[in-house]
């Protein structure tokens, strides 16, 4: 039983967001500290910010790799998280509705997130970074399964 992984394009999406954020904050931090405290401090701040951004990138990568889902006969397993590791089991019969969402970056890369909702507010079950086609198929498959196994509240 092998966990399915999100599309590698999810990593591209994360990289785009990361680069955009770094490209904005890094120069701003350097310029500001140069103006306020001189070139040496600016170099230090730049170095620190760069290291921070790199470690964030490493974290993002580990987090991206931690995503996984497994369609079993009666339920869906979703695992995620690096620092806080989570594993959720959602029985198909408990699904109330399904969401497929895609932000601008996701749309551009042809990705989508499938989210499962049960009657419990605490249920935390989403699968990001599926290709649009996979997401549609997964949604339809889950919806069919959910209907077949639906259980009353």
């Amino acid at each position: 039983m092998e966990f399915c992984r999100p599309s590698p394009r999810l990593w591209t999406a994360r990289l785009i967001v990361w680069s955009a954020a770094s490209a904005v904050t890094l120069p701003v931090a350097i310029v500001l500290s140069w103006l306020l405290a001189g070139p040496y401090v600016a170099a230090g701040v730049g170095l620190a910010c760069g290291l921070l951004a790199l470690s964030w990138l490493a974290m993002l990568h580990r987090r991206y790799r931690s995503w996984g889902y497994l369609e079993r006969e009666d339920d869906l397993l979703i695992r995620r998280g690096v620092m806080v590791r989570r594993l959720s089991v959602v029985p198909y019969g408990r699904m109330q509705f399904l969401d497929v969402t895609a932000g601008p970056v996701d749309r551009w890369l042809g990705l989508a997130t499938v989210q499962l909702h049960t009657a419990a507010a605490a249920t935390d079950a989403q699968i990001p970074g599926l290709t649009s086609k996979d997401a549609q198929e997964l949604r339809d498959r889950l919806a069919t399964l959910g209907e077949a196994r639906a259980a009353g509240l």
Partner: protein
Amino acid sequence: MTLDLTGGETRPWTRLHPLSPVLHFARALTLIAVVFLPRLANPLDVGSGLPWPELIGGAILVLAGLVSWLVTRWRVDRGELQIETGLIRRQSIRVPLRRVQAIDVVRPLLGRILGLAELRIVLAGSGRSHTRLAYLTEEHAHQVRAELLALAAGLAGDTPVPPERPILAVDTSTLLAATACSASAVAGAAVAIGVGVAAVVTARPVLVLALSWPVLLIAGGAAWRVLNTEYGFVVAEAPDGLRLRSGLLQTRAETVPRGRVQAVRWISPVLWRPFGWQRLEIDVARQRQGHGGDADSGALTRALLPVGTREDAEALLVRVLPAATISPPPDARPPRRARLRAPLSYHNLAVWYDERYVWTRTGRLRPTVTVVPLEKVQSLRRIQGPVQRRLRLATLHVDTAGRRWHAVAYARDDSEATALLHRLTDLCRAARRSPRAPVGAGAAGIRPSHPENPVAPRRAAS
């Protein structure tokens, strides 16, 4: 088949009670009266003419109330409760009665004076937590409640109200004593004593009082809310569900139909331990109520037993969830190293299960056992934070459709938590599929003797 429940005929629309707007706008009207009356009474002010702002405000309120009353109508038709309301934004509400989770009859103080009551129909679903019929005459409200419950149970709407059997009543002295021993009351008393001492020591009582009154107000308010909500608590059992009645100024009669209980909490606060008192709370699939004007109903969870002895609590628990007694097996405790992660509550942590329920125990000052019927479990989650990973521990969450709380097994051994997750998944699946009578559907196996057999006449009508 469902369509023929009311005999197929279309029922006429009815309006709510004509005095409903008075209750709806009671607060605003009081405010206006408070502003208006002194001015009327003050002879010096008469010369400046009529108090136009107040008069206009009052007129607008009266008009709005009249219009809202005129445009709202409702009926019960074909197994649905239908409500139409709104002047500009017309709203048409259809409540499929099969989906009803609970029905409450709420009587606010003014409503009791006028003999009016509000009917709240609680549904699962997201969005609006409940649909309300506000207000009807008390008699009518009870009649409609009986009809809706009969329809919800799949019986004919004119089925006679089934006889109910009182199970338990909480006497006022016990409730008062228990409230006095509640955490908020004790904290309030401690602050009061502290204030007294500080006032004497510093010789500046006004300043001390000024600094401490918010705390006193909060503590007093909490104790008052408990009293106001849970005064005169009576539990009765009827064939269509459990009836809970309580309230001091605003009374509430709730009916939880069979098999709608999502979870039960058994709380034994440390402060109550000398008296052996317990508290039971139940959860049905409903949303947190947080809209304005509804504050007091959402402030407290619905108690199944505000305070009672262990025997009372056990009897009630078994009535709601058959065979769900609280008796943790010896291996229910987490490993010793869990003490590092949860030093305070370690002694109370436990999780255990059988084929029908899962129990978890948590908490330090209010040790709480949460019982969840496996067939009601929505999803399971295993969560492991960085500290827990270092200690090879993990926490298991059992999610239910009740919005208030879910069962949590804190700080279990890592591999045990994973095994538990899979084991519970299997057990839940089996529980969902088993043809066994739904949980809470009359503890037939536990209490076989129903001499009057109240179920029979209702069956005959369907």
